[in-house]
């Protein structure tokens, strides 16, 4: 694909405290594509996303969004950039003291000079898009899990961003809603030309929406490529992932016993 990269991650190394989480990750997301980040739980998917959003401080490496290096960007540049980004967090992160409608209007209220009427109409339009029309006066606590995620998506796209980031948008939802969210993501790509990064561990959903897939494995990049390339890969760990097998290699009973009794760690510590 010859299209321009809107997100470029170079040699990203990150720590939480002493623990290294991402061990030199490089990837890019092209304009107008859906990039799915996959990997087992705890492999660093959310961490990578949080770094793309400049919510964490990297140990080394660089991240460029629309050509701007977010590690060295000025407040002004960062502000301009954030207007072009929409984020739907894993847990929704709706503001619990505001109604759904107010949640969705907040970016408009903070960043535009539109009058209140117009903002309300725009918020309702976005709620319509995520199939939540008529729910604008409810509080987030009155919504079900799936509705929270859809409302979060509505808030993420209310400014018509160029880049959209979704962390597990369909995890824990029933198949119908999950499918609807996948369709919505594709629609946003096709009609608005958004570049979209989706973190997920649901294979079906990933295969359906992904233009390309990045597979993370314990902080390392295991694979970057299209869905077909992924399916045809002969890497054992990738095949395990695709066949929904746990990543554990065969263990001999003795080693297993040693691990259970904690002897392993003692031996390592010695």
């Amino acid at each position, binding site marked *: 694909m010859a299209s321009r990269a809107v997100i470029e991650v170079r040699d990203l190394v990150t720590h939480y405290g002493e623990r290294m989480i991402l061990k030199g990750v490089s990837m890019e997301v092209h304009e107008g594509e859906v990039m799915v980040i996959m990997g087992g739980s705890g492999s660093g998917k959310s961490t990578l996303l949080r770094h793309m*959003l400049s*919510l964490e401080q990297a140990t080394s490496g660089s991240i460029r969004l629309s050509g701007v290096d977010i590690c060295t960007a000025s407040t002004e540049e960062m*502000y301009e950039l954030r207007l072009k980004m929409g*984020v739907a*967090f894993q847990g929704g*992160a*709706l503001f*619990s003291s505001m109604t759904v409608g107010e949640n969705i209007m907040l970016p408009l209220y903070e*960043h535009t000079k539109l009058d209140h009427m117009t903002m309300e109409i725009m918020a309702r339009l976005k709620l319509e898009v995520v199939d939540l029309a008529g729910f604008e006066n409810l509080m987030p606590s009155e919504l079900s899990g799936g509705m929270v995620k859809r409302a979060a998506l509505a808030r993420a796209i209310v*400014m018509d961003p160029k880049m959209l980031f979704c962390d597990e948008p369909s995890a824990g939802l029933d198949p119908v809603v999950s499918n609807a969210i996948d369709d919505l993501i594709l629609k946003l790509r096709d009609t608005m030309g958004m570049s979209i990064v989706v973190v997920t561990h649901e294979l079906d959903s990933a295969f359906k929406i992904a233009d390309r897939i990045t597979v993370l494995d314990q902080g390392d990049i295991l694979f970057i490529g299209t869905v077909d390339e992924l399916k045809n890969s002969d890497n054992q760990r990738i095949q395990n992932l695709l066949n929904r097998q746990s990543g554990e290699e065969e263990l001999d009973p003795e080693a297993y016993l040693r691990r259970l009794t904690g002897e392993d760690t003692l031996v390592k510590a010695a």
Partner: protein
Amino acid sequence: MSEAGPFSPVVRLAERVGRSTVGGIEGIGHGASLLAESIYWTCLGWRKHQPVRLPAVFSEMMEVGIRAIPIVMVLSAAIGIMLAIQGIYTLKMFGAESRVVIGIAFSVVREFAPLITGILVAGRSGSALAARLSTMKINEEIDALTSMGVNPVRFLVVPALLAMLVMLPALTFFSDFISLFAAGIYVNLDLGLSLAAYADQTLDILSVDDLMHGLGKSVLFAFLITLVAVVNGAAVTGGAEGVGRVTTRSVVHAITAIVITDMLFAFLVTH
């Protein structure tokens, strides 16, 4: 293994003391930078797409100030009457109970009103602020704000700080009035001093300086309560029980800070 090995109780204790000292200094550092940032956004926010919203400040003022009026009234009246009872009882030993008005006036305006109001607001609004911020942090709401280009300090902290800076002195002034009034009624009933005479004497005794002493302290307390709440709230880890922990800690820290500041203030002003 020798006594001073890495696991001996002494070393562990020393380590814990060391860590909490470092933690405390770190907290003060965070508080200072938070204060600087709050002042920055208050003054320059409107030029950097981060205007401080007046409606947000007003709704905080409503919560911090207006809703606290009933309980401030009750506590202040109780304190005023307590001071009158104690003052008359003590002065009776010298047969000087008619001088009780001096004691009441100074104690209320310079010490008790600011202190009791500060402690009350720390327990009521400081804890609420710490709970709200820590919950928001755990639910990634703070990250959501940041990622939509809204500075969380400007959006959440500055309105609370400004509201506190206006309402705590206002409540303290109100508390002055209620305490003195309640004490006056008791003195009237016990010593037969008319309320008009009591008011005359009180106004005679009190100078603007005394009033300013009390109100000045309450401004200081307003800073302390807000910054302690925000620093603790932002330091939350874990889930719901983390919220409970930082909320409690923020109240304890705030009240400690208030009482110690009060002591230092009294010392500095009288020396």
